[in-house]
């Protein structure tokens, strides 16, 4: 217990305040305020891996580390699509995941947002279209925003999420 506490104190708070959404250029605290203004609560994200190589998943997971501290700005990942506002999709959509992806989207209550992550999600990436791959996420379900990169850095994913929220009209 003493060990744990002393390590917590020594580690301190690492969350970086340097991430901005380019359009609004707001510091993190203001982002949180803005999300609350738009949604009245935290933004809830459901992630679906529709066929990625697992690279993008690792960078999405990194958003939960203390440096990015995504929950600290009022964004959280949820287990059920029925609790979600936004669907984060990685990978080219594999033929075997096509139906599961569509069903997940259908399970999210309206209004809902979709963000495609990574080169594959944005445009099919190295896999493109083939007998087992449908290519980009937008070729299967409607997408509001996408972020390129292989894999995109956590900061880029966070920016894409914030920009998507800011460009919504509801």
């Amino acid at each position, binding site marked *: 217990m003493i*060990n*744990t506490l002393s*390590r*917590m104190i020594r*580690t301190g708070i*690492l969350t970086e305040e340097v991430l901005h959404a380019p359009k609004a250029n707001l510091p993190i605290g203001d982002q949180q305020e803005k999300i609350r203004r738009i949604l009245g609560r935290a933004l809830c994200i459901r*992630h*679906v*891996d*529709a*066929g*990625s*190589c*697992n*690279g*993008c*998943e*690792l*960078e*999405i*997971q*990194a958003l*939960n*580390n*203390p*440096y990015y501290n995504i929950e600290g700005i009022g964004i959280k*990942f949820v*287990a*059920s699509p029925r609790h979600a506002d936004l669907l984060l999709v990685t*990978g*080219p959509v*594999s*033929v*075997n*995941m*096509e*139906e*599961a992806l569509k069903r*997940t989207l259908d399970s999210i209550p309206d209004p809902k947002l979709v963000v495609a992550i990574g080169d594959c999600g944005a445009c099919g*990436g*190295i*896999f493109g*279209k*083939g*007998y*087992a*791959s*449908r290519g980009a996420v937008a070729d299967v379900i409607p997408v509001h925003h996408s972020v390129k990169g*292989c*894999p995109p*850095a956590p900061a880029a994913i966070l920016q894409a999420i914030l920009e998507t929220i800011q460009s919504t009209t509801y």
Partner: protein
Amino acid sequence: MTQWFKEGAKTVPSNLPCSRKRVGAVEWREIAKSVCSAGGRLFALWGTDDRDRDSRFRVFAAYLQSGGLAVVEHEMDGGTRPTYPSLREYFPSALRMERAIFDLVGIKSMEPDHRGWLRHGGWPEDAFPLRRDFCRDNQFAVVSEPYSFVQVEGDGVHEIPVGPVHAGTIEPGHFRFSVVGEKVLRLEERLGYKHKGIEKLFETMPQKEGYKLAARISGDSAVAYSWAYCAALEAVTGTMCPPRAVQLRALALEHERLANHLGDLGALGNDAGFAFGLTQFSRIKEDLLRTNQACFGARYLMDFVVPGGVAPDLPDDARRLLLDHYNAIETDVVSMRNTYDNHAGVQDRLRETGVLKQDLAWNLDANGLAARASGIPHDLRADLPWQPYDKLNVKVSSQATGDVAARVAVRFDEVIESLRICRALAADLRGGDIETTVPDAEPGLLGIGAIEGWRGPVLIALETGSNGSIRRCHPHDPSWQNWPLIEYAILGNLVPDFPLINKSFNLSYSGHDV
């Protein structure tokens, strides 16, 4: 290598000692039997359609033995129903590979289980993607097909279907639990959801570009796969990598091992109800990724290993930065291990959970990290060291208990050992070139690249085509052997312990589904 194999065997270009032999149907099984009884392991199994060349289908088995790799090749007539004897009797992990070979190449093993493994109705039953006359660009409407899971019947038994979409930020796959109360009676996995047609895609790429796809077979093992690919290509072209490039590849491979182990140690703490572990380890991992960015030019090294060497070179101040960082990681990890080991609540969740005893692990063909945690101390870096591991004396970590705690302990040990290797590499880094030119390979050659990734040994079997093209490329992930282990490790455990047990193996879906 055993004597029976040497007779009539030819050398195969590879980064490991490797030979190849063509055999008939009877010998195909006899070799499997003698490899099995001599303590060898089935490494990979794949099929090819060579009807355009000599009206034959072929099936290949790669075995791992104390002296090196043995590739056994069996050919069958390209008639309407090509079949070959199953290896399941000696190596149970062969079953899923045989099902996958049928889905892709259309050659059947003489096993009764022919349920689609990679094919979920996404292409017609009588179309086989890896046949020469199948066009990769074909797009079919999905015809959803029922999949018959093995049913468990009796008082109070019920089924829990999980997936393919899971509750966290992880890859998709389906798990079918049959449970009584909270206890798991049976688990059946269904994988293949991420099948993207990687093997067919390889055939459309030039040899010199294939490393990019290899790195994206399983993004968490990008260095292992791209190195295996480049090792196969360099072996068939007779290319020698500059010494500095070889050292930098090993450095990158160890960084990949560190990043994944650090991430898993945090996630395992979290799944045991100890969020502090996740916070601390995700910080340590993030620091390492940032060092990767500073030294290798990327957080994840997707395109660092290239044919003939690496790109880009380290910046001038990298050595100091790396050595300082290794010390910082070691201090943190030693202290965190102490915290995990002395935390009664964490230990209560980790110990005797998801036990996989040594004899069962051996009989199920376990490999890599999972095998080492069940008392099977195999590691290519130590058993068949290739350059530069031949000078690094890698110490293999192994635990006897086979529970989640053992898989945690092996990760802790391997982090410390990786740091030692990284220090040795960074301290002794040679100067000079980091890349050399790779010529186009002669057509019709088979090269094998095998690398011990963080999860276990990965293999690339590369067959060259004409004018620098790829005729066939088969990647093999250690997860093929290890996925069935979880079906046994979960038995008798509570359903809520499944995420913890699954995470303790942390197998690849993408690398398996290709």
